[in-house]
């Protein structure tokens, strides 16, 4: 009786979130798996099962493979560049100041920078997209190209040249992400006891040594989390690419990403079955990535 009351109490609290989670997260996932085995057009009342036909079609879909290649580039560049830049800035903000090795504090004005770095994170992705559309605009009204033209240089088609478009998009993603990771890493750095730095500094370690031998190893967990977040972000890019490059992967498919393709296949072409198959593929890609990252970088924790 006592047990029942105790667990009944806990279950009572858990029931609502579990039900909400099952209805709004788990069941759509399961449904996506189910629909991916059909040729549902979004309007039919009954599902018509076609087996793995949709997945076979994926293998012959050039746009799908192009999207995977783009995700590959994103996956390599976005986490690495964001984390390197964020680490650099958060080191400067938290530990970079003072005379060499002496004071464990940030550079002058670090409180101000901390706020400024976070600004892009506050903006909605759509706003960022519109903003950078103006910055990248290919004629004399573009922020960058206007300056280039004034300097007598040729304007650059940032989002129209197939060799540049994806990189221009990645730059925006990094620009927006860095602020958040600066704050995340700053919090991690604040948790590292100051004695470590002071001890190392007394032994004559310079800033580089401090960073690579103390800060980075002790930030490992935080960086790992950041890596997984950014990796998953590399499988997204939906809103930003929609605004900056449109939904056709232009130019020449160099900005094809799976979420945009799924959206277009389902809602524009009424091929819900095929779109669900893409969604299932995307699900496995993200899960595989997250598991791999967490597994391969697992190490013993350091307690301090």
């Amino acid at each position, binding site marked *: 009786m006592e047990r029942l009351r105790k667990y009944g109490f806990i279950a009572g609290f858990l029931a609502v979130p579990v039900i909400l989670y099952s209805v709004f997260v788990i069941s759509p996932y399961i449904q996506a798996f189910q629909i991916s085995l059909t*040729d549902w*057009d*979004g*309007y*039919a*009342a009954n599902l018509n099962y076609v087996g793995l036909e949709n997945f076979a079609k994926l293998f012959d879909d050039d746009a799908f493979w192009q999207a995977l290649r783009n995700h590959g580039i994103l996956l390599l560049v976005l986490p690495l560049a964001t984390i390197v830049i964020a680490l650099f800035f958060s080191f400067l903000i938290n530990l970079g100041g003072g005379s060499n090795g002496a004071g464990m504090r940030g550079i002058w004005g670090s409180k101000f920078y901390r706020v400024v770095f976070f600004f892009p994170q506050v903006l909605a992705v759509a706003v960022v997209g519109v903003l950078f559309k103006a910055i*990248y*605009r*290919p*004629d004399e*009204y573009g922020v960058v*190209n206007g300056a280039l033209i004034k300097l007598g240089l040729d*304007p650059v*088609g*940032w*989002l*129209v040249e*197939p060799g540049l478009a994806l990189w221009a998009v990645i730059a925006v993603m990094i620009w927006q992400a860095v602020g958040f990771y600066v704050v995340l890493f700053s919090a991690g750095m604040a948790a590292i006891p100051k004695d470590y730095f002071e001890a190392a500094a007394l032994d004559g370690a310079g800033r580089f040594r401090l960073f690579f031998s103390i800060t980075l190893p002790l930030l490992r967990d935080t960086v790992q989390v950041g890596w997984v977040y950014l990796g998953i972000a590399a499988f997204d890019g939906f809103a930003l690419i929609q605004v900056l490059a*449109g939904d*056709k*992967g*232009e*130019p*020449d*498919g160099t900005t094809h990403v799976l979420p945009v393709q799924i959206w277009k296949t389902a*809602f*524009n*072409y*009424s*091929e819900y079955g095929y779109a669900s198959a893409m969604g299932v593929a995307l699900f496995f890609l993200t899960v595989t990535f997250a598991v791999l990252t967490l597994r391969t970088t697992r190490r013993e924790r350091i307690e301090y």
Partner: protein
Amino acid sequence: MTHPGEITRRQLLRRIGLTAFVAGPGAGLLSACATAGGGGTPSSAAPATTLAASADPKNPFGVDPNKPLEVTIFSGGYTDAYAKDIHEPMYKKAFPGASIKHNATQQIGIQLRPRFVSGDAPDVVNNSGPESMDLVALAGQGHLADLSVLFDAPSYDDPGKKVRDTVTPAVITNAKIDGKDLVLNYTVSHRALWYNARLFEQKGWTVPKTWAEFTALGELAKKEGILLFAYPGQVGPYYQTWNVLYTAAKIGGNQVIIDIDNLVDNAWLADPVKKAVAAWVDVQTKYGDKAYFGLDHTQTQVKQLQNKLLFYPTGSWIENEMVKDIPDDFEYAIAPIPDVTPTDAMPYGAIQVGVGENFVVGAKGKNPQGGLEYLRIMLSKEGAKGFTEKTQNLTVVNGAAEGVDLPAALRSAAKAQDAAGQNIITDARFEGWYKELFDYATEQINVVMAGRSTPEEFCANVQKKADEIKKDSKVSKQTRSE
């Protein structure tokens, strides 16, 4: 080839149409809509979605006067005022006991798809905008009411006349999905190249009639720092897909587009298509500016208003779209596509005239009879005139724009249509039938126009996609004969 000087009987009739137009704008225009009709074979194949027409000309569909009616309007460029202030009050006036649930949205598909699936669809749907529903799929599930009863019903204004005889014939030919009349196209638009008539007056330029004149004007304009031609590479590159297709039809006749629509083998490899693509790529390379590949339609249209480009491929809605920004020394006018070769199948002056803006009636809704009646009201003179007044766009209803003060673009379009006579370029219907193919062609248009593929490669690529669509048994196929 016919020359402007030779007047045939048909053209004479059209000239009379022109007089009518001068007397009352729009009258001649609409009677002259030359996408020849003849689709008058009402289908009786869909018993589930066909509603019987009763004998009462006041209420031919037997509407229950107390049943509520639900109307969903796409509140895009036309807004929803025409429905709220014109058509719905007309319905209320006819059936004072009925309540109308009015719903305006820009997300037709997201809002209505689940409702159609669950059998709770609105009675009238204005299926439009980027998130519109796939009508072929809806038709396949029997969700759309057969409109042939509407077309055969007595018209609102004159019980002696059937609805089908009060609208431009293209309405009937464009209503068909899977051989049934399911879609009402309500607006008429004119597509070709648009320019600033005032600028031409001021510079003493004339509208080029041949490709040589066109490029010569390009040289002249270049000296003044004006581009001959530009299209928006972002959001609206399909304007250029249209433009290239219409150019191909001008060179090789409407059959070029009809073959493409019917997925005829190697339709995209036809010589007129290649010639059209090559001609426009040449213009882009010599007189274009690659910056426009990164501009959207609004940015490009603003630049035309600043006289930075001469010709822009679009439709007669352009003036209404830009109305707030048009400077005093700018007047939109339509220019037909110049002769590409001396032996073009269609003479100079041919423009595209088409119908658009889809309205459907939900077959499984609560009040399909009311839905049909609502469409009949829209097709009345009063309803259509109200639409034109509210939106500055023409409807398919013959003579409904009489007495309405039309903007310059529409007056220019009407004149151009009159000059074109029978030489009306048809619309490319695969845009609605095989959206994936149209999107792919549009993507490839940017590639070929930017010089990253040759016109031959363009044709081969799009043909490959067309072959894929043709082979895909899951894509329901549509055909047209004219």
